[in-house]
């Protein structure tokens, strides 16, 4: 697949003596929405963390837009154009919603302490860029009414949306979503799913979605990668995956 944004090639991760991820390979195409699913403890989070540089893979490569990003620090990966959300929402508590989303655009360029003190042109440009992106995504995701409130003062549903806005403000080519629907009710889930679809289409970024909620995942994604016991057991369209005997076995344990 020449148009792939991300290619995970033969990824393995060991913890102590335990092989948490075992030779997993998959790719994500431009603008593609891919679900990464599997039972609890199957290795989803580990794969996720390995892609984002939170843990070092034991072997294998991660290639993002033709560039090997294996072993890069998370901040470098963010600069390369991958952003993420967190399972247990991690908004910045001292900052307003707008400032949180502005932080998302931090990866747009480097500008050090001295440059900030001196207010060089680069700093002004980056600040302007961050403000523009923040305002755009806040308006787009319907957060305008809360823009100037402390982010952690919002209800959970809105916090999740604010976190998505923050990830989008980084103008990613790929956004990783770690259980974006956890803790949301049905109505909120549907709204979030709609927002995600629209935002991904608008910004032209691919999505990799990790969730237990098969219902949400199946309705949202183009393709599903299923892992169990650290191995990939299926990689296909949602419809095909639900018919796959290996998947059924993994999920039902029978």
């Amino acid at each position, binding site marked *: 697949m020449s148009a792939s944004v991300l290619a995970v090639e033969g990824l393995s991760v060991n913890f*102590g003596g335990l092989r948490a991820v075992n030779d997993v390979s998959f790719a994500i195409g431009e603008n593609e929405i891919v679900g990464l699913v599997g039972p609890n403890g199957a290795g989803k989070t580990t794969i996720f963390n390995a892609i*984002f540089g*939170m843990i070092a893979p034991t072997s294998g490569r991660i290639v993002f837009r033709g560039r090997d990003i294996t072993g890069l*620090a*998370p*901040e470098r990966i*963010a*600069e390369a154009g991958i*952003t*993420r959300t*967190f399972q247990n929402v*991690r*908004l*910045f*508590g*001292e*900052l*307003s919603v707008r*400032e949180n989303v*502005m*932080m*998302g655009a*931090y*990866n*747009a360029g480097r*500008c*050090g*302490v001295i440059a*900030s*003190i*001196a*207010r060089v042109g680069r*700093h002004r440009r*980056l*600040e302007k860029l*961050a403000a523009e992106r923040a305002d755009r995504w806040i308006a787009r995701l*319907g*957060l305008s*009414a*809360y823009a*100037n*409130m*402390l982010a*952690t*003062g*919002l*209800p959970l*549903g*809105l916090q999740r*949306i604010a976190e998505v806005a*923050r*990830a989008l403000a*980084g103008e990613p080519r790929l956004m990783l979503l770690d259980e974006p629907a956890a803790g949301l009710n049905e*109505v*909120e889930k549907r*709204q*979030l799913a709609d927002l995600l679809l629209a935002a991904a289409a608008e910004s032209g970024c691919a999505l990799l979605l990790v969730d237990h909620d098969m219902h949400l995942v199946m309705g949202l994604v183009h393709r599903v990668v299923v892992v169990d016991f650290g191995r990939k057991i299926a990689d296909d369209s949602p419809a095909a995956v639900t018919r796959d005997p290996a998947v059924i076995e993994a999920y039902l344990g029978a």
Partner: protein
Amino acid sequence: MNPTDLVQTAVSGLANGALYAFVGLSFSLVSRSTGLINFAQGDLTMLGGMLTAVMTEATVPLFIAVPLAALICAAISGGFYYFAIRPSTRATMSQLVIITVGLSILIRGAVTSIWGTDPRQVPPFTAGGPIAVGGVSILPQQLWLIGLLAVVAIATTWFFRRTVLGLALRASSGNALGASFVGIDNRVLGLFAFAAAGFLGGLVGAVWSPIAYAQVDIGVGLGIKGFTGAMLGGLHTAYGPLVGGVLLGIFEAFTAGYVSSHYEDALIFALLILALLLRPQGLLGGANSTTQDERPEQILSTSVRATTFGRRDFIGIAIGIAVLGLIGAVLPGVWVSNAIFAGIEAMAVIGLVLLTGFAGQLSLGQAAFMMIGAYASAYLTVRSGWPPILALMVGAALSVVVALALGRIIFRLRGFYLSMASLGLLMIALTFAREWYGITGGPSGFVGIGAFSLFGFDLGSDTAVYYTVATFVVISLLFGMSIARSRIGRALLAIRSSESAARACGVDVVGLKMRIFAFSAATASVGGSLYGHYLSIVNPSPFGLDATIQQLTAVTVGGFLSLWGALAGSLLTVALPQLIGWVSGSVASQFIAGIDYIIFGLLLIGIVMTQSNPALHRFRMRLSHRGTGAAVDAKESVRAP
């Protein structure tokens, strides 16, 4: 060196090592049960010695005095946990560490006020001179200490293997959540650990006191050495603190005997920094023991804090400059010098607001950078005849280099290593200031520093100094504000909340912490330079731990996240001792020196406790929301759009 000497050195090292082992074990107990570094540990040991000294002077027999001293220390330590730490449920680790710094000062203050600062002698437990064994002479008291170490080592093994409480302590330090599922109450463990640490500290202080003297000043050094030993051996292992403490004692004896008796302290703290660099989990620690859960800092804001310049900032700065200008013109003579000292302190505190407040990194070593600035200015202007402004800049550059180097080591590690390592840095700096006569002039200091001058204008009068300092303060404030009101300020507050989320946004967390540490070092250094020029003399004494305490109190009083608060806090902490001095007038000065400590200690403990008490927090939130709008209501009523 002949074998007898070697053995002799090892034996005396072993005795001191026993002391460090005990203190390290106390650190370890508290850290394993609560995750805290208890800064008062050394002072509890000091208190054990003091109490024994005072009681034996009052002819209380030793066999009563020693256990009683240990029990009193246990009660103080346990009571402190129960009344100050346990209720502060919203406090983050760095705030809890600040509370323990408060206790440390409180103990020092109380001991100073009641018994003074003079050393006190304690009679040895068994009479008689040194015992000679094959040319090696041992004091009976050293034998007592080594014997006690053996007893405690055995008791520790027994405790951690055979008692339910010991198992529970290990379980809880390995997996606190799992421990709560089997019914282990972490608060009970915390109480036990603090009480036991107090007991052990007090006991070893009592047994050690006949070898040296009991004196109020020894607490801090003992604390750092005990901690260093524990870190060397492995803070979170069963025997690491004991092994590390003994090794440290022997290392110290050999460096003093064969390398340099002047720089032994500096070498020990260098060892601490080296240990943090090479093996933060300790000699006996497993490979994974440094992994830590992310612990977000407590949210201090009750309303949105600006991270871009607004009109209010410009008005604030204008008013600030006007007020500072006016004060210089109208302030009576005596107060001008206080204002100068406050300004110099504010230089250090402004950096701390960004480092400790914004980025959540607790540093106790700002005074080390003040010292670097002060001595650089003194040396370069007096010896080399440099213009003061150039010397000041070189000092700041030197401080930046030191901060970057130390930061590189420290910030790779998560946790509270910076607080201990920066304290170690301060101790190294103090050692050099006292011992490196060629550069620093030793304890009596460097004299004859000229007044600060710029482009040939001598700025020596108090008023001129005031305006010079005020100018530098305003510049630092503007710099600090430019950082706070920028993407960097936002990034620092982000680090404070969640390092992993900040990194996911592209923030180079380690690099940014290093740079902010360097910035805080630079402002402190400039403050130090100005201090030297103002007093025309630089010696180590004003840069000791008292300076750190004052700065920490100023940041705490100022509210951690406010640069204006830094100014206000500096003013208050400079003015307070003066006011106390006036009010108490003729009372003995030792009593007053103690009262200063007590008040600073109470301020630290009180402010952090009020910030982190859940009931009081809710109250503050309600107050602030009444003022700024209906955010709380929004939270209850708003659902997703």
